[in-house]
């Protein structure tokens, strides 16, 4: 059977742009959350969020002045940066004149594309100025805008598509690319996801009152997964990307191998048995994790560390309970667990991919990144797992297997198992 490995990664996160800066940030527990005046001006309850810092100069390292004319889609920008970085990191070339590569494809997900560009376009339409919208409104606002941009920049000839499944999007994208290589339909897949930032993408969540309004004066302390004082999530944005490749192809090229993707599972709770549009069906979550473990042909006891979904809402305790039941492990026997959201917030459609990049970095460099803002672990969680399994400082540990799960609106779940390559 075809083994699938990760040979390149790229990331654009609120606490670090580029793999090097991001690695440093997650080891140190650096928060990327800041206060934003435009949220306050729009009367948001939650005025804090995570936005990657990208200068105009930096943009020109990835997109041409022509591509940047009338460009107003933060998600596509982040996705292109992360995707191109991952491609280069895998030792592959980016050349506008390159031959078409039928063996390489792309599954790059998003939730909503180019929401700021869409706003511009709507104002033009309402003013009767359709003719003056320019040529790129469709490209920037179609859901598959990001895969369309990347497909052309890299000259990909295999499947080029965008998936969308709310906050599971990124993790699902990795599994879709994994399946395609495993099935022998592609040698190499660029996978990942991206999300826009700003009031127009975050407003709906603020309206639902699911974002914290208690930390406008202390933004870096706002995102508190697993904490007793968690009071809602903090919105984030960015992109994460990986180059997945058949082991055979990776070895042939002499590529650096970050880790192996052992397997995974995607399912849905069907909004039954407690599941709703916004809440998970616990049974389906557990089944997703259990089946991911089965698919990976490992035992639950082999998992060294978990990178959870853990958004800092009231559902964190339920997620921990689901993990304990699915793994049949609790207390001091539970694996280490962390949530990147404590540092970058909830990057929505980009969450699964950015967090997976973090999970794989942990395997490659043998550490467990700290949970920040979690010195007061929720008592319900402490009844399930030992406090020491929720690291507050970075740990240097020998790690072999990491599990990553993401859960999303619509009652959808994804779980993936990564293993140190050896």
């Amino acid at each position, binding site marked *: 059977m075809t083994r699938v490995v990760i040979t390149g990664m790229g990331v654009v996160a609120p606490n670090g742009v580029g793999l090097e800066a991001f690695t440093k940030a997650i080891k140190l527990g650096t928060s990327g959350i800041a206060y934003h005046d435009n949220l306050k001006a729009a009367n948001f309850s939650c005025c804090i969020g995570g936005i990657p810092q990208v200068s105009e100069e930096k943009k020109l390292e990835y997109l041409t*002045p*022509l591509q940047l*004319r*009338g460009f107003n889609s933060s998600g596509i920008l982040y996705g292109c940066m992360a995707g191109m970085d991952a491609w280069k990191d895998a030792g592959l070339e980016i050349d506008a004149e390159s031959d078409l590569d039928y063996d390489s494809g792309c599954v790059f997900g998003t939730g909503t594309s180019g929401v700021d560009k869409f706003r511009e376009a709507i104002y033009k339409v309402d003013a009767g100025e359709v003719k*003056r919208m*320019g*040529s790129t409104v469709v490209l920037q606002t179609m859901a598959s805008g990001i895969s369309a941009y990347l497909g052309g920049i890299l000259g990909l000839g295999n499947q080029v598509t965008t998936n969308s499944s709310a906050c599971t999007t990124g993790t699902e994208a990795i599994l879709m690319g994994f399946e395609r290589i495993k099935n022998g339909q592609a040698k190499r897949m660029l996978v990942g996801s991206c999300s826009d930032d700003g009031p127009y993408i975050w407003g709906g969540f603020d309206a639902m009152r699911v974002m914290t309004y208690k930390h406008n004066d202390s933004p870096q302390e706002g995102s508190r997964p697993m904490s007793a004082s968690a009071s809602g999530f903090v919105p984030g944005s960015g992109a994460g990307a990986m180059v997945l490749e058949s082991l055979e192809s990776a070895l042939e090229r002499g590529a650096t191998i970050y880790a192996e993707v052992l397997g995974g599972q995607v399912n849905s709770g069907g909004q039954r048995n407690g599941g709703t549009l916004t809440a998970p069906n616990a049974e389906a979550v557990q089944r997703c994790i259990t089946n991911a473990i089965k698919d990976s042909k490992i035992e639950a006891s082999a998992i060294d560390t978990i990178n959870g979904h853990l958004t800092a809402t009231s559902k964190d305790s339920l997620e921990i309970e689901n993990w304990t039941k699915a793994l049949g492990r609790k207390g001091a026997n539970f694996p280490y667990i962390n949530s990147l959201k404590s540092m970058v917030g909830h990057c929505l459609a980009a969450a699964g991919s950015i967090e997976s990049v973090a999970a794989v970095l942990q395997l490659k460099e043998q550490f467990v990144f700290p949970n920040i803002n979690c010195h007061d672990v929720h008592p319900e969680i402490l009844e399930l797992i030992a406090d020491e399994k929720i690291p507050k400082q970075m740990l240097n540990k020998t790690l072999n297997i990491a599990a990553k799960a993401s859960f999303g609106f619509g009652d959808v779940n994804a779980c993936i198992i990564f293993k140190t390559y050896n």
Partner: protein
Amino acid sequence: MKNEDLIAKLKTIVQPYVQDEDAFNNLSEETTFVGDLKINSANLVDIILDVEDEFDIRIENEEMEQMLSVKAAMAIVNSKIAS
């Protein structure tokens, strides 16, 4: 407007979209946008917008369809400025 002034303005407008620098450097009235300058045809609408803004005119769909060369663009702009 003098022809050379008009050509200079059109050159500034099309430059960001040009994919063939040699053709651009040798631009004449006979130069075509897509064939010679290798401009992506989707970008023709962006050029129209820039021309509209530069000369404070509005170009209709039928006129746009004809605006395939420097010469045609000059004729349309001239007719609009004159009216």
